[in-house]
């Protein structure tokens, strides 16, 4: 298995990441707008400062030189210094916010599976019942609402009107970090981010389980007289779960994307606001750092998904 993983990383991961970062750096460098734009807001600015700043940030060099320099730093696990006035290491900037985004993403995945799987199973078990139709309806609602809209509605109902949950943000200054506190701050954003996951997991679970329930080998099991319940849970479930696992790997990109908007609405201190700000300010090192990190995470996610699929299904062995 390790050989597989190493090969995947070398043959697939590295070239992909190289191509990706090259393309991204090219796009942001040739684009209009510049990292020194904000100097416009400084009154009485001595104009020599602009050229000095550009030289300091390496902007006076051709794109390929800048890219290679950046790559050289990345290999040494150094993502460079942010282009903004604080010039803090990009690794630190990302590190300060990453846990929050990871917590949010994980929570939404847990919600997605925790609610989606049982709901999907029940839906399949009671196929064509009222329960099934209602669940299917809500699942469709879930995948049709733009997340910012759902989030704002939740905030309006639970934070403003009912005042039972905070309006966003994270622990206030001086507030103790209790477990309940985490739940209160996480609940609405995770629900908003996870809505799409809950809905799609539920539907895929239902479809997958139904497909398996119709398999021939299960007919044999039933013919042998085992009770319906055991039939479902033992045999069908295990097989039905397999495609869902791969689903996880594919869901990661959309979760990270969705997190950007959700974090904005809920003032969640994750990477989302940093990413948007970095793009607006043409903060090249931060843009590259965040995108690189997400790309790596997505890639790892897909490997994990494939490997765990192979683990679970004894029929598969990867070449």
């Amino acid at each position, binding site marked *: 298995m390790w050989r597989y993983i190493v090969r995947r990383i070398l043959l697939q991961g590295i070239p992909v990441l190289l191509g990706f970062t090259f393309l991204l750096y090219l796009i942001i460098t040739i684009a209009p707008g510049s990292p020194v734009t904000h100097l416009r807001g400084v009154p009485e600015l001595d104009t020599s400062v602009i050229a000095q700043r550009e030289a300091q940030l390496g902007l006076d060099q051709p794109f390929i030189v800048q890219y290679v320099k950046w790559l050289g730093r990345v290999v040494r696990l150094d993502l460079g210094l942010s282009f*903004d006035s604080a*010039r803090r290491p990009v690794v630190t900037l990302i590190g300060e916010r990453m846990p929050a985004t990871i917590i949010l993403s994980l929570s939404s995945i847990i919600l997605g599976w925790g609610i989606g799987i049982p709901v999907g199973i029940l839906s399949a078990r009671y196929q064509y019942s009222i329960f099934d139709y209602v669940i299917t309806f809500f699942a469709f609602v879930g995948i049709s609402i733009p997340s910012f809209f759902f989030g704002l509605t939740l905030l309006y109902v639970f934070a403003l009107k009912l005042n039972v949950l905070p309006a966003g943000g994270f622990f206030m200054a001086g507030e103790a970090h209790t477990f309940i506190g985490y739940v209160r701050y996480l609940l609405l954003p995770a629900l908003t981010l996870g809505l799409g996951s809950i809905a799609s997991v539920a539907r895929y679970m239902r479809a997958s389980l139904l497909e398996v329930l119709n398999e021939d080998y299960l007919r044999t099991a039933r013919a042998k007289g085992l009770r319906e319940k055991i039939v479902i849970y033992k045999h069908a479930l295990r097989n039905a779960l397999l495609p869902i696992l791969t689903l996880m790997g594919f869901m990661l990109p959309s979760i990270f994307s969705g997190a950007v908007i959700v974090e904005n609405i809920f003032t969640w201190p994750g990477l989302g606001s940093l990413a948007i700000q970095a793009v607006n300010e043409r903060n090249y090192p931060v843009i590259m750092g965040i995108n690189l990190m997400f790309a790596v995470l997505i890639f790892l996610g897909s490997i994990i998904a494939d490997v765990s699929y192979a683990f679970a299904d004894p029929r598969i062995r990867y070449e």
Partner: protein
Amino acid sequence: MKKRLVIVLLLVLSLSVLVSAQEVPVQGGTFRYGTTINPRGMFNPVLYTESYDAYIIDVVYDGLIEVDANLQPQPKVAKSWEISEDGMEITFYLHEGIKFHDGVELTAKDVAYTYMTILHPEYTGVRYGNFNMLEGAQEYKEGTADTVPGIEVIDDYTIRFKTIRPHAPLLVSFGYGILPSHLLADIPVGELETADFNLNPIGSGPFKFVEFLTDQHVTLEANEDYFFGRPNIDTLVFQKVSQDTIPIFLQQNRIDFIEIAPDQFLQVSEMDHIDLYVYEALSYSYIAFNMRQARFDDARVRQAITHGFDRELYVDLIREGFGIVANAPMPQASWAYTDEGINPYPYDPELAAQLLAEAGWKPGADGILEKDGEKLEFEFLVPEGSRLTEQMALLFQQNMEDLGIKVNLMFMEFSAAVDRVDAREFDTFTMSWSLAVDPDPYGIWHSTSLWNDPGFFNDESDRLIEQGRLETDIEKRKEIYAEWQRLINYELPTMFLNYGVSIGAINERVKGIDADPGPYGPLVGRQLLTTIWLED
């Protein structure tokens, strides 16, 4: 008779005791100041550029002077100063016994260090332009001199600055926080921007820095040994709040002060425990004409377009009344403001049509004005990000259409828009200027200035601007700027839209607020953060 007098006196006395009893400040509590953007973490007064870092810097550090609500300099670290007859020398006399947060005394040495850093050849910040007229500054910057004769430490509590020419805006520039040289002198100036100090600042101000959680909040605590008296509140927190959820944060009592947008006014005004303060800001928004183009080089065209845009409607309906229609570049919040001889350019489409006709623009077959075969059609660059600007642009487009002018809206991301403006590849665009404390318009309007986007090259304007910088008497400066503004108001290189008006929402538990705050609002002015107190 005597008895009645005594009773009246007693009544008055007891009433005044009652009244003043409510006015006695209470110590303690945590004040939460809401901002929509979190600071960067560059808490260094000579290296910061973002206003969100400035919130923290303003309370952690003290400068030689401090700007009050009328934008006038008041003593702070300097207990007094003297300006020479020719206006080229300022001598500051410092208080004795001011201490930094680590207990070390602040002396003239620290003041010199702070300003020498700005003039240093390897200085990476942006403030050099404020001080490049100090004697010897240029030579020092170029590396041909080792010292700056323009900065002279006379003794521990006296420091003198000399300039090569009188420069009126200089005095107000001495508000920058004083750095502790004993902590920083050993760090090479070129490496100052990555120093740990910037994230753990030590100043001599009313609040001490405690911690900074990025994208969440910054916590500061009262400086018990503050030279000018300990602030009333114990803890000061700058809390990040997402724009859309501001009303909910206010409702849930999670912040004590935040500025709100005009379209949130109605909702917040219905909250009983929140008071609203409206105050003018030192900013104005505008629509700039590219005067390098022949069609915009004619003042009549610019004036006609201004007459043809209903700015009153824009302020009343789109801004919900939160704004003041502007016709000159110095806002009402500034001491240099004038309305004498200023043409208000009221909305008058007929007059506009007349002016355009005089300039040679006649309606063509399709209704669009044309002259010598060229149609009056232009692109209007609108940076993204503000709903109000978007709505203004739509109204402008419609008003112009009624005049027979075709405006093509070009919404662009801000940085990209600036790129186009810098390259002078625009017809018209809209932005706003956030102004410095001193009204000197050189940086924006002088013909040699980089930021002179419209391309306004006018000898008389240049002359007045230069004169305004040299004149140190404030009354005379006012006159010069009044004359200059009348010129600008006639020429209209940009159409002025509105002066900024801010709305501050304050929780009623906050007491001691100045009912008539200056352009920085009731709470951005640092002295107010030290005088307010909380009552729960």
